[in-house]
């Protein structure tokens, strides 16, 4: 496991800040683990492919060498691995972590689970901001993977009551 320390002194918790050395391996030397409960819907898979094509393969797959299989077992990055195969990539960049099997299983879950959530209100502000920056409606929808319905709702910042401004009061009944 190649590690290059950059800040020589460990921080308060004793964690070294390091850059883990990535390596390029043949895509055939990787295989999916059998336990990952995470499934990415097709829509997000399409978005992932677009993202890789536009911004590149930004960070390596995390994997662990499996002696029995004679290959690297994926810990995190299964869906990116799938996209790489789809677009005909022959190689992938990986970080080889020497982890016990049970730690690898748990790290997979943590990588999936430790994520923030987009606050609805801030997401609405962000969409409006993108529009102000001059990005066209269709572009925003396409680039962020939003349906027009979602986009229009987020863009509507006048509040729910505004949508009913043209309603006429109904007849009373008894």
């Amino acid at each position: 496991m190649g590690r290059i320390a950059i800040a020589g002194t460990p921080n308060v918790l004793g964690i070294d800040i390091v850059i883990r050395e990535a390596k390029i391996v043949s895509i055939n030397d990787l295989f999916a683990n059998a336990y990952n409960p995470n499934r990415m819907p097709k829509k997000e898979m399409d978005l992932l492919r677009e993202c890789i094509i536009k911004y590149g393969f930004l960070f390596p797959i995390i994997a662990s060498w499996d002696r029995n299989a004679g290959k690297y077992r994926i810990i995190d990055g299964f869906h990116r691995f799938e996209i790489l195969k789809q677009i005909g990539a022959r190689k992938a960049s990986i970080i080889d972590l020497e982890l016990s099997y049970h730690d690898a299983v748990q790290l997979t879950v943590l990588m999936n689970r430790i994520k923030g959530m987009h606050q609805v209100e801030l997401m609405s502000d962000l969409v409006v901001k993108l529009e102000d920056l001059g990005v066209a409606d269709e572009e925003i929808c396409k680039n962020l993977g939003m349906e027009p319905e979602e986009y229009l709702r987020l863009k509507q910042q006048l509040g729910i009551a505004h949508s009913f401004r043209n309603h006429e009061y109904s007849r009373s009944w008894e």
Partner: protein
Amino acid sequence: MALKTYKDKTVLEAARERIAMLFDNFEKINVSISSGKDSCVLYHLCLQEAVERGRKFTAFFLDQEAEYENTIIVVRRMMQHEHVIPMWFQVPIYMTNATSYSEYFLYAWGPGEKWIREKDPMAVHSIGEAYPQRFYDFFKWYEGKNPDAAYLVGLRADESLTRYRAVTKHPGWNGIRWGSMDGDIKTFYPLYDWTVYDVWKFIYDYDIPYNKIYDLMFLDGQSIYKGMRISNLIHEKSYKCLVDLPRYEPETYNRLCERIAGIATASRYASEKLMFDNKTLPAHYKSWKEFRDFLLQNIPDREHREKFARRFEKQKASEKIYQAQVGQLLINDYENARPFDTKREERIGRIKEKWAELL
């Protein structure tokens, strides 16, 4: 109310007349507010009437602690008006927690507990006598204190026709059909004929400050016509809002997680089928009976286990019934707050028999 007769006036005109009539006949007007859109409209109609007459009315809110911050913002505003007598109760009360098998109750505002927010200086913090520490009983107790008042509630028929029918089965004070009497407690529903469109139109027309959670639900793609309900956050009927809470009010979510067990689990899984829903039988079980027995045997609290068991004993032995029982077990509803129709199968059976005879 067997027949719906339309009148030659709008729901707004009619509601104003109803409220004016109540102000004419009752010295004490009490409006129950929940921060929901309906009670918000009712409050503002009463406020307009009170201002015009130079009178005051009471706004009643039983604060269950596990509330949206945005709810509190709206309630605080409503309580502050000079024509309003604030009756905002922040007193110890037990709330059922539908999310946990280990903590059945949230003891809201319990002495010595770490509340999710500070009490408001305007609210009632303690009551100098014994009072019922459960939600519905508290309402009854509060109403009994002032039996000569008119109690106004923002119930609408298009939202819950069954509930509306149930409460108006017996005519209200003076034979009024949009009210009900329970002993000498007089309740009125001045908005009963309003639709959800009318409610939002009124809020728009009068630029009324409303609960911002509605805007977030709207931005978030929720249906305008159903499902947008605001109540406390952990009850049997509302815990599903925990799925959205981290994206609506992250800070409230964090505080709620620290306050009581089960929140994070409900937030992660309440929208998924298996954990809190009884629509699909998990693959590990051969029958609903087997799954029900498993859940029943694993309730940690003996008293609640027995309460469930006693109730289930009286019910018919059938897979449909077992499935319904699983539904209650999954949300820890040992008080039968969400009862199911145990006689339905029998009724359908009888109808089938009758048809068989006829054919």
